[in-house]
C-alpha cells in the first residue's frame, strides 16, 4: 500500500475559510461532506457522470467527486449551502420550488448550482441552451420538464 501523509489543507468554501488536515487522496466531495459537514452536495455515481456532486470553483461548475481537495486551495468554492441570501432563498432556488422542479431532491443541489452558473454566464438562455447546460445533471424523477420551466422563468424575468 502506498504511503500517505496527512497534509494541512486550507479551503475557502462559501466565503468561509476552513483549515483541515486530510490525506491527499480525499476528494473535494468527501471533504465537503465529511469534514465540513455540508451534506447538500451528493454522491450519486462517484464517476462525474450524474452531476449530483456539482459545486462551483471560482464560479465554474465542476465535479467535486473528481476533484482533489488539495488541488483547489486558494480557489473560491461554492456549494448549494452558499447561494441562499441569508434566510431567503436565492431566486434560482425559489424558482425551482415555485415551479415544482424538485421531487425527491437528490439531484437538486447540483441542478440548481448548474442553473445558477448558466444564468450568470448567459442571463437569457434559450430552452435548447438550458437543456444543454443541464444535460450533465441526471434527474430520475421529473423528466426535466419543470426544471427547464423554472430556469426559463428566470431568463424571462431578466427582461
Amino acid at each position: 500500500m502506498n504511503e500517505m501523509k496527512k497534509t494541512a489543507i486550507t479551503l475557502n468554501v462559501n466565503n468561509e475559510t476552513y483549515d483541515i488536515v486530510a490525506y491527499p487522496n480525499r476528494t473535494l466531495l468527501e471533504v465537503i461532506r465529511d469534514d465540513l459537514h455540508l451534506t447538500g452536495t451528493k454522491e450519486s455515481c462517484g464517476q462525474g457522470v450524474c452531476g449530483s456532486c456539482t459545486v462551483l470553483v471560482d464560479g465554474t461548475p465542476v465535479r467535486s467527486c473528481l476533484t482533489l481537495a488539495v488541488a483547489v486551495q486558494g480557489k473560491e468554492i461554492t456549494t448549494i449551502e452558499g447561494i441562499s441570501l441569508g434566510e431567503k432563498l436565492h431566486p434560482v432556488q425559489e424558482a425551482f420550488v415555485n415551479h415544482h422542479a424538485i421531487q425527491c431532491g437528490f439531484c437538486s443541489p447540483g441542478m440548481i448550482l448548474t442553473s445558477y452558473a448558466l444564468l450568470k454566464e448567459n442571463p437569457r438562455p434559450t430552452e435548447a441552451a438550458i437543456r444543454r447546460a443541464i444535460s450533465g445533471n441526471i434527474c430520475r424523477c421529473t423528466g426535466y420538464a419543470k426544471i427547464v420551466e423554472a430556469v426559463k422563468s428566470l431568463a424571462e424575468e431578466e427582461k
Partner: protein
Amino acid sequence: MEKFSYIGKDMKRIDTACKATGEAVFAADLVLPRMLVGKILRSPHAHAQIVAIDPSKAEKLPGVKAVVTAKDTCGDKWGVFKYTQDQQFLPTEKVRYVGEEVAAVAAVDEDTALEALSLIDVTYEVLPAVYTIEDALAPGAPQLHDVYPNNINVHVVIDVGDVEKGFTNSYLVREDTFTAPEDSYFQGEPYAVAAQFDHAGNLEIWMPNAGPHMKAKPLSNVLKTPLNKVRVRKITIGGAFGGRSEISPADVICAFLAKKAQRPVKIVYSREENTVCTRQAHSMITKIKTGFDREGRVVARDITCHMDGGAYSSTGPIAVSVPFLCMEQAYRMENVRYNGYRVLTNKPIRGMFRTHGRAFACGIDIQLDMIGEAMGIDPLTMRLRNARQTGDYTPTKSYVASCGLTETIEKTGKMSRWTEKFGKLPPYHGIGIGCNSVQTGFPMGIRGGSQAFIKLNEDGGVTVITGIVDNGQGNDHMIVQIAAEELGLTPDDVQLITADTEVTPSDPGSYSMCETFIGGNAVRLAAQDVKKKLFRIVAAEFGVGEEELSARNRKIFVTNNPQQTMSIAKAVRIALSRNESISGEGSYWPKVDAKREWVKNPYGQLSETFSFGTVICEVKVDPETGQVKVMEVTASQDVGYALNPKVIEGQFEGGVAMGGQGGMLTEYLQWHEGRVLTPTQLGYLVPLAIDMPKINTIIVETIDPKGPYGAKEAGMSVAMSAAQAYCGAISNALGVYFHEYPITPDKILKAIEEKKKRDREG
C-alpha cells in the same frame, strides 16, 4: 364541486425548500456520534458453496470494531410471503448471485473498512450456474433452491371464461412473443442505511424505504426483538420507483454490526451496489395470443409470461401478477388465460418496477395495432373499442367504480392531432398510442389499512401523525394539503410526524399507488374527526347546528353568516378549559377481497379503485443511424381528482421519461453471464434533459366515489402507457412492429434493412 382553499391548487410543496438549500437529510447524510463505517463483502461467484469464512485477520485489524458473518445470525430464511421464505440475509450454505452479501465489517473509517474486507478469507466451491430463463428451465439444470423444482418459484394461473371457444369464435387470431431484458431503477439516491442501538436494546434505523412498517416487522423477526423496540425512522428519500419496498440484507447487516460494535454504523452503497445488490426489474418473455372479432374487440386472450426473477423470491407473486392485472384493468377481455412463471437464475434479485413489464404491456398494445392494421382500424379506435368502462368487472372480478379511460383516449387523441397525423405522416415519421391502468393498493392483510392521528396545540396549530411515506413524489405535502383544507387551517399550521414506526400507526406504504387513496383518506377522516369535535363546541357557543358551520383561515364561522366567527385556537382552549382533551383519529381500510391471494386465489376485489390513462407519442427516425428523435408526447390519466395538478403533472412527466424515453430507447442491463456490465449511469443510459421531448399533460377527473375528494392516484401507469406509445410510434414510423425492447438504433437499422429486403422480394 365545493370551493377549496388548498385542495386542487397548484401550491408549492412544503418539503422542497429544504431540498433546494441542501438541508434535507438523506440516509447517507446522517452523522451520529462515534459512528462507524460499514462495508459489505460480496460474492464474486454466481453460484458457489461457502466452504469456510475466516474473519479473524479482519477482526484483528486496528480500527475494526465488528465483523459479522452468517454465524452471527440465526440463519432464518425470510420472504415477503410465508410461501416465499428463501432468503437468509447472510447465507450459511451457498451464494446464489455475484454481489450477494457474505460478510460485513464496521470500522472507524472507510479505508480501514475496505482493508478489513480484503482480509476476510472466504473459501468457495464454485457450482454450475444458470443465467437465462431457458437454461434455468432445462432438464438437469442446477437448482438454486431445493424448495423450487425446475427453478420456478412462482406460477400464477388465471383462467376466466372459455379461451378456446373464444379463439374459435374469433374473426382473427394473432400470436406473438415479446421480450425485454432487465430494466433498473437508478434512483438518484444510492441505498444507504444507518443503525444504532441503545443499552436497552432499542434499535433506531434509517434507510430509504417505501414503507417503514414493512421494514420493521422482518427486522423484528430476524433480530428477535419486539416491534416496539424496532424504530424505523423518517428520512428524506431519494426516489423508489418500486425498488425499496422490502427489507434489504443491508438493513439487517447494519443492525447486526451496530449491535456487535455497540456503536452507530452507517453503510452507504456505491452506485454499482445500488444497481446490483438491491433490486432490478425482471426480464421477460411474453407470449400473447389474442382473438378479435370483426370490430377489433378482443374475444379471447391467452398469455404466457416467463420472468427472470434472479436468485430469490422478493415480491415474486406480486411482480408476476401486476403486469397482467394492469392490462386486464385497462382493457376488456371476457375470456382470458394467464400463466405467469417466475424463474430463478443466478442473477441479482428482481422486484416490482414502475414500468411493470415493458415486454408485457407493449406486447398487448402493439398487437392491437397489428390487428387494427389487418382490419383497417386505426390504433386509437382499437383502444376505444376495447377500453375498460365504469361499472365493469375485470376478468379477475374487481369492480371498477370509476373509469375515465375513454375520456383520456379522446382528449389525448385530440391534443396530439391523431386523426390529422396517423397514416398521413411521411416515411420514418410515426405516431403511436398506449393505454394502461394501475391499481390503488391490493389485499395486504393486516397491513392494508392506514390510520392517522392529529394532535392539537392550544394556539390552534396541529401535528398530523401518519405512516404515509414520501419517496419524493409529494406525499408529505398531500397530507398537509388535506389536513389544512379539512381543518380550516393554513399549511403553515400543520406539522408532520410521518413514517416512523415508533410513533406513527401502520400504513401500507407508498407502493402500488395506495398512499393517496388509503393514507389520504385516513388523514381526511382524522381531520374530520377533529373538526366535528370543534364544531360541537362552537355550535353550542353560537347556538346553531353543527351543520351550519364552516372552517377556513383558522376560523370557524356560520356559513351563511360569516361575521359570526370564532378562531380555532379559541375553540381548542374552550375544550381544554373544560378539562377535555382534544385530538383526532381516522383510519381507512379499503374494501378489498381479503380472500384474494396472488397465487392461491387470484380473484376478487383487488383494490377499491383503479386509475387509467393514455399516452400518444410522435417520433422521427433517422434511417441511416436508426436513432429516434421524439417530437412530442401527450400524457393523460384519470386520476380521480387532482389534489395538486402541478404535482401530478410532475408524475406524468417523470413517467414519460422513465417508461418511454428510457424504457423504450436506451435502458437495459447488459451482462457477462451473471455479472452486470452496466451498473453505472455511464453504461445504463437514463434520459437526459437534452433528449426529452415536449410533454403535454392532460389531467382527467372522474371524481372517484371513495377517494379523498375523489382522488385516486397520481399517474404511475403513465410510465407503462408511455412505453407502449413509444413502441407504437416507432413501429408506425418504420412500418415494422417491434417485439424486442428497448428499441435501440441497431435494432431499428436491422428492421429497416430487413423490410427493404422483404419489399424488394415481395
